[in-house]
């Protein structure tokens, strides 16, 4: 198989890579670009651990081909904090102890950020539905949902 040359934007930086035609964006990020924040859980789009945004749209990077990223804009968990300053969602997840093993956390943060950009004041039910595709096998979700609602309140200045 001949490799495909891709130029794309990741977290605002222009990035070039070579990938196999059947390689997923998740594998490209982790194995070629060195961004290992997106995790592989199921690799079939069920668990959300590999969530990234593609042109601002929340997607599972395991369900995107690396070759499809040509000319697009990707954001990953690595682009979330501003230097050492954590995003309010990251801070509330930490402060609320809303994680145990941490595998699902990057995906949950990316998905929650996409929600708050669309809806800064979601109800608990809306948060639960939005995050239905982000599986966590440790926490029972309650602290995650609370952390997202608390971060949303802080970001609204409430």
């Amino acid at each position, binding site marked *: 198989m001949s490799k495909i040359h891709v130029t794309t934007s990741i977290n605002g930086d222009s990035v070039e890579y070579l990938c*196999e035609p*059947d390689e997923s964006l998740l594998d490209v990020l982790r194995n070629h670009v060195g961004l290992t924040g997106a995790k592989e859980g199921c690799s*079939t*789009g069920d668990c959300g651990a590999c969530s990234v945004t593609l042109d601002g*749209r*929340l997607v*599972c990077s395991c*369900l995107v081909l690396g070759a*499809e990223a040509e000319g697009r804009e990707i954001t990953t968990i690595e682009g979330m904090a501003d230097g050492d300053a954590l995003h309010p969602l990251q801070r509330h997840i930490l402060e609320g102890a809303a994680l145990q093993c941490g595998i699902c956390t990057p995906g949950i943060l990316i998905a929650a950020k996409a929600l708050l950009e669309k809806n800064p004041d979601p109800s608990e039910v809306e948060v639960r539905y939005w995050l*239905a595709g982000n599986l966590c096998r440790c926490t029972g979700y309650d602290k995650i949902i609370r952390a997202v609602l608390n971060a949303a309140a802080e970001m609204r200045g409430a």
Partner: protein
Amino acid sequence: MQFHSPDTIEQAIELLDESRGINRILAGGTDVLVQLRLKLATPDLIVDIKHIDGMRDIRAENGGFRIGAAVSGAEMEEHAALKSLWPGVVEAMALVGSTQVQGRATLTGNLCNASPAADSVPAMVAAQAVATIVGPKGARTCPVLDIPAGPGQTTLQKAEIITSIYLPARPQNSGDAYLRFIPRTEMDIAVSAAGVSLTLDGNDVVTDAKVALGAVAPTVLSLDGVAETLIGTKLDADTLAKLQSTCAAACKPIDDRRGTIAFRTKTAGVLAKRAALIAYIRAGGTK
């Protein structure tokens, strides 16, 4: 495997037509990439159609909407005018997968994946949606009902691509709805499902009706005879009971770990009844 993302439909068809092996058309990829990963398919060629003109557009056309083959569920959900004309189709598509899957999954992909349980398909059949297909011999149209041929099988010929799906204009006082049964609240595959589209006159009397069932046969079922039952009524209890029994009688489901034949048959009828009531209220009827 070769990956191409052509700029024109002609190039895409040529690539598919010349391919001698297994090929896949890529739009949202939420089924194709799963097939790849689970080695359910090992394509020699993938043709990404997202760069072709019109594939990502929702266009108003003759009072209806033409939805390009690469339009995502999330984009449909955000389109207020589409949602207001065909709420049942949009809500059916919105039930496919998670928020992440909605960011990529397409109406056309849901149709072409040809799962008997595809959520958007009964809603599209009730809406009398029509696919536009382009292939080596030119363009043709085909009712969505006639695309699925069996589980995982479609009636599309070699190198044919569905480029868009048209949801037609509808008279005043029309409404549609889609309901499915799943054992959980989210993120599951329909055990049984029903799509209903109704038109009423000014006095809450049904003048046109379409009912389709999902996940209870190898392909979507269009219940053509049911219109007679509903037309001329205000969906009174007897009519709804008749609708339920007609639907149940049409079911030819399988027994599997997600539902028994008896359960699928019973729930399909109940869902049709409930979806009819929602469609009736959306059409302006009072209950």
